[in-house]
């Protein structure tokens, strides 16, 4: 075990995977000599060389398209999109190509690409350095979507993503890059995709969340305890395909669920979780599944703190669920 920040854990996983498997290559903007604008690839260019740590021209559709071609032809590319807000120029390559290769070729061609991208708010980045686009990718059949909340999970999930036979959108909560510190197993270490983590055990209400919001959930849980409410906090880790058993098992016990995410509310992942819970645990529900989310607006600059759900807003929803 070593203490690492989340971004150090990402860097550690990338280095180990490149060590382990010569097919692993990295590509993206400013990831080489500069080590990435968040330093996630720091030192890898010097260590593995410019042929495996590839600085690309400024074209996300080129980055993802090239990564797909590399994967079709036997490499294991890990593409970095500098901010998830800039993934849209690659949206056609992701939705029309990356997600569909296995299906449209009936398994003849597969594109095991990992797309890493810093996601979410918290750095005063305004519209274009703060978005949480997970719902677009969860709605796209053929993709896996992952988002860690701790350094250890960041390392273990990224290693699993690189080894996974399917394309993975790996969303990195940039707000936690340096603020989240924790013990991380040294050397080879994986965390399986598709398995949630009980971040906090409780019996009164189930809070389903992921990424940077896990901390907010734990904060709110601590406040709720003072009011005699004992919430369970589930950190999904893999957003899709999600760990449905973990969520339903919990809600069957607690009878109440609050979904928490930073992304806009409408047609966000919270809607899917809400729909699934009431489909699968309807008779256990003592209150409607609540959603605490970002606003249905572009991500604001000056009012960022108001936009991002905080413990206070979550606590309000927890109370409402319990008092329903």
């Amino acid at each position, binding site marked *: 075990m070593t203490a690492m920040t989340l971004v150090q854990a990402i860097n550690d996983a990338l280095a180990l995977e490149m060590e382990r498997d010569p097919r692993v290559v990295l590509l993206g903007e400013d990831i080489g000599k500069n080590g990435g604008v968040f330093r996630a690839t720091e030192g890898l260019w010097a260590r593995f060389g410019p042929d495996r740590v590839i600085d690309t021209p400024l074209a996300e559709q080129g980055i993802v398209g090239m990564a797909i071609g590399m994967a079709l032809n036997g490499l294991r590319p890990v593409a970095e999109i500098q901010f998830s807000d800039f993934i849209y120029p690659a949206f056609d390559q992701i939705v*029309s190509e990356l997600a569909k290769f296995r299906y449209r070729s009936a398994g003849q*061609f597969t594109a095991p690409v990992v797309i890493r991208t810093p996601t979410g708010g918290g750095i005063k980045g305004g519209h274009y350095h703060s978005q949480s686009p997970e719902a677009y990718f969860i709605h796209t059949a053929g993709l896996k979507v992952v988002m860690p909340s701790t350094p250890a999970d960041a390392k273990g999930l990224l290693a699993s993503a690189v080894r996974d036979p399917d394309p993975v959108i790996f969303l990195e909560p940039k707000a936690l890059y340096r603020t989240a510190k924790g013990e991380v197993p040294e050397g080879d270490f994986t965390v399986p995709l598709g398995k949630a983590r009980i971040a906090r055990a409780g019996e009164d209400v189930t809070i389903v969340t992921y990424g940077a919001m896990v901390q907010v959930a734990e904060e709110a849980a601590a406040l709720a305890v003072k009011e005699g409410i004992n919430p369970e906090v589930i950190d999904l880790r893999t957003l899709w395909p999600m760990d449905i058993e973990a969520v339903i098992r919990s809600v069957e016990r607690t009878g109440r669920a609050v979904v928490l995410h930073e992304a806009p509310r409408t047609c966000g992942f919270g809607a899917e979780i809400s729909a699934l819970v009431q489909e699968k645990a309807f008779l256990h529900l003592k209150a409607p599944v609540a959603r605490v989310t970002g606003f249905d607006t572009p991500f604001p600059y000056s009012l960022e703190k108001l936009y991002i759900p905080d413990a206070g807003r979550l606590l309000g929803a927890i109370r409402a669920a319990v008092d329903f």
Partner: protein
Amino acid sequence: MELPLLAALREDGSIDPDLDPKFDGEILLLLFRKMVFLRALDEKGQHLQRAGRIGFYIGAAGQEAAEIGSGFALRKGDWVFPSYRDQGAALMHGYPLPSLVGQLFGNSKDLTKGKQMPNHWCDRALCIVSVSSPVATQLPQAVGAAYAARMRGEKTAVIGYFGDGGSSTGEFHAAMNFAGVFRTPNVFFCSNNQYAISTPFARQTASGSVAAKAAAYGIEGVRVDGNDVLAVYTVTRRAMERASEGSGPTLVEAVTYRMGSHSTSDDQARYRSAEEVEEWGRKDPIRRYGGWLKKKGLLTDQDEAEASSSAREEVQRAVAACESAPPVPRESLVEDVYAEMPWHLSEQLEWIREPIAR
């Protein structure tokens, strides 16, 4: 800076020495028969669609020289990223006719299980990548595949096919630019058939040619007479060799003409004149090459007739062998989305397993 239009075949039956592939009579004839075959296949495809026996078809009538010439220039192990109109090149790279025809019917004879529309085939063993409809998305992928091949020290090259309309896409721009920066072993083969559905090339870009765009990426650009099978072969072959030798990518523009409608869903009469179509018809690459072979005494009218009748028969046999095959299994609807079927797709399988009372 207009690039010259390279042509090999001369009216008088001679050939431009600079573009002479130096083929013996047998190969010269083989190419002719393949062009005739492709025409016959495309005609059959259209008939099958009109008769409602398949859902859709895209032919390459008028582009046989570009398809057969470029396809014959590919070497074993070269990767191909085709578009929906490149069945000719695929067949030349070894794609079996039965697979192609099976894909048209989308039944159990379709190696891709009826997942996609006709003309959207692939073959992993031959490195012929799965065709998708979105125009030019295959081009940046071709760059990545070429990068991978070079990284493993393979002496292969990767060709990406596209059309004049494709040259307007962001994918084209990214692909050319990345190939120029990384000097990947790529050939980008544009069949400029003068139309993107109804949009004439002059409306597609003001650059005058597609090959002229190569300079914007620091890569080689070549304009070749796309109705001259030998010139297309020589130019493409040289570009493939150049690429696999590490001398950099090439953008090849084959100047040709789509003699038919865009697809079975299109009606060319709505947007272009019969005169124009006739005029290009006089440049029909099969007629032209056949005439050249005859001048050389390598082809008789009888050979010609025999070539097309045997082609029609071969296609007919393939159709007969596929058409009545059983449909794909219902379960295949939810297969091949992921390597392993996740819980939600297993649940959705129930939607079609349960026979629903009406």
